[in-house]
């Protein structure tokens, strides 16, 4: 098994843990934690693919930075959405948010 495969398996492990967390968690905040795990696995996979193969290194590092920027934007928006949801519904449990009108 090559070194890159080990990194990719770690990334897949993070992806699976994130999916498990998204299904298993009750509150929206727990689901956000799962999404962060998945995004981190994606960044790790991109970096490993570029750094350990003849592909240009700058490409992988730029890709990982873009993933981080996306995660930052996503976390900001999710915080605002969580605030609005918790004000309207008084809780953030995923199974109880069954109406789309506020």
């Amino acid at each position, binding site marked *: 098994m090559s070194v890159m495969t080990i990194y990719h398996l770690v990334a897949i492990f993070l992806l699976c843990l994130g999916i*498990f967390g998204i299904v298993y968690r009750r509150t929206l905040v727990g689901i956000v934690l799962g999404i962060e795990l998945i995004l981190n696995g994606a960044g790790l996979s991109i970096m490993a693919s570029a750094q350990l193969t003849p592909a240009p290194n700058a490409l992988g590092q730029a890709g990982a930075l873009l993933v981080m920027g996306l995660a930052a934007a996503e976390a900001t928006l999710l915080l605002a959405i969580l605030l609005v949801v918790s004000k309207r519904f008084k809780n953030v449990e995923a199974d109880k948010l069954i109406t789309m009108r506020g």
Partner: protein
Amino acid sequence: MENLQYENLAWAVLYGHIAIIAVGGFITVLSQSLVRALVGLIMTLFGVAGLFFLMAAPFIALMQLLIYVGAVSVLIFFAIMLTNAWPGGDESVARTGKKTVYALLAAMLPAIFLGSAAIKTAPPSDLVSKEIEVSVLGQFFMADFILPFELISLLLTVAMAGAVVLALERRRQK
């Protein structure tokens, strides 16, 4: 290669960080208190940053620490504080067995398919990677990668503006 005299140390660092990632990940998805889950996520982020250091990309590793550990986890902590997701709240109620089985199934399928694909179709890879200078990365961003770079800054601006609008609109209605 001449710089492989510390190879055993590098393997130890690799598996140590993988262990940190695994423990932190399990804390993140299984902990009953959301604050503990967030601490587990921070542990995982530190492990991934260590793997970035091991891949000879110190700039990206420091960015990981700055952006994820410094900014994103603080945002999530604010979300925990402001939404009454207190310990002993919704998350501590026992799950039904069906939900656990569904979650395990949803996690197992990509593990099997993607894992076997990654093992079978892996191209030969280098053992060590060459470090590139930050100036090279900056020139890459400014020359070849200028459109995604500008788009991500536009996306960040729109996200911040959208967050402010979302938070302010509710206050005006009251």
